[in-house]
């Protein structure tokens, strides 16, 4: 892997982005878009949308959008540099932090923080689900798919892939 300025630039961008990504990868998608399309001019708006759709459709964490951006800019080396910059240092920090955190298992402040964060987390997850629904669903049929999957996941222990598979087939036939 030869080291080029663009790889350094990618590493720098995603390293700073990872420090901002409190609340998860989806929370920084708008910021990634801003930097990649409008500040750096690495790709067009349409390119970015396609990469986003691809990262959503493929299995695996949504943060893989980062590797796709790197790939688009600088091939496989770009993909690897970007994903490592986005996940590596943050993971090391998380490891160190939880290590320290666990030593204070019985501390009243830690217990208060834990109890205080719990409802915020639930609100955030529900908000992500809502935002996803509003962003993606553009027809009565797609809302019905979202509602059906929600009902299925709440009431049965069926593997969600069954639901996603049926949705994919319906979508492929143009019924969603």
């Amino acid at each position: 892997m030869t080291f080029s300025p663009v790889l350094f630039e990618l590493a720098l961008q995603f390293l700073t982005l990872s420090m901002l990504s409190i609340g998860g990868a989806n929370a920084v998608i708008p910021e990634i878009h801003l930097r990649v399309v409008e500040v750096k001019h690495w790709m067009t708006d349409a390119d970015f949308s396609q990469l986003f759709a691809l990262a959503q459709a493929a299995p695996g964490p949504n943060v893989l959008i980062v590797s796709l951006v790197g790939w688009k800019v600088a091939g496989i080396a770009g993909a690897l540099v970007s994903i490592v910059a986005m996940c590596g240092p943050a993971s090391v920090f998380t490891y160190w932090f939880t290590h320290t955190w666990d030593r204070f298992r019985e501390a009243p402040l830690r217990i208060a923080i834990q109890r205080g964060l719990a409802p915020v987390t639930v609100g955030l997850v529900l908000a992500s689900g809502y935002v996803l629904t509003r962003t993606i669903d553009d027809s009565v049929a797609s809302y019905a798919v979202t509602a059906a999957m929600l009902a299925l996941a709440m009431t049965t222990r069926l593997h969600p892939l069954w639901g996603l598979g049926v949705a994919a087939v319906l979508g492929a036939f143009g019924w969603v």
Partner: protein
Amino acid sequence: MDTVPIASSAAHVSTGALFVGFLKVGLTGFGGVLPFARRMLVEQRRWLTGPEFNEVLSLAQFLPGPNIVNVSVIVGRRFHGKLGALAATAGLMLMPLVIVLALATIHAQFAHVDAVRGACNAVSAAAAGLMLSMGLKMGRAIERTPWQIGIAAVVFIAIGLLRFPLLWTLAVLVPISVAIAGRTR
């Protein structure tokens, strides 16, 4: 390498099991991996209880970095320290990374095919429903006194309906929530 034992019954999880468990999560996680991670950790393998998962995800969300990657680091560390964290994270990321890059190289030929686009949209719609179900399931696993329901509702309205910036919303609401939690024990 000192690992802190956790309260759940499943204290014996091998590094290999961590790798395979998160590998499955990564490979099956379409449109967002967290619901699949919760299913594997809480409902299937029972490595964590519902409240333990909430605790892990709370931490993962408020630390920098992708949530699910943080979850794999925290869970891996609990069972096997550095090696566990590495095994879980590698299991989660490696295959999806290969797949998404392979897809990207062939995507150009298929992006315009209606059937492909239709299937992708429908899968995303279903995945949104899955994310909502995870939020509701997590809600069932926390204490539900009026203030906790109130905080969850305010967060949902601020981020979901009003689309306030995440960092500022959390900077205001987290201290409030922690302060109430500290006073109501």
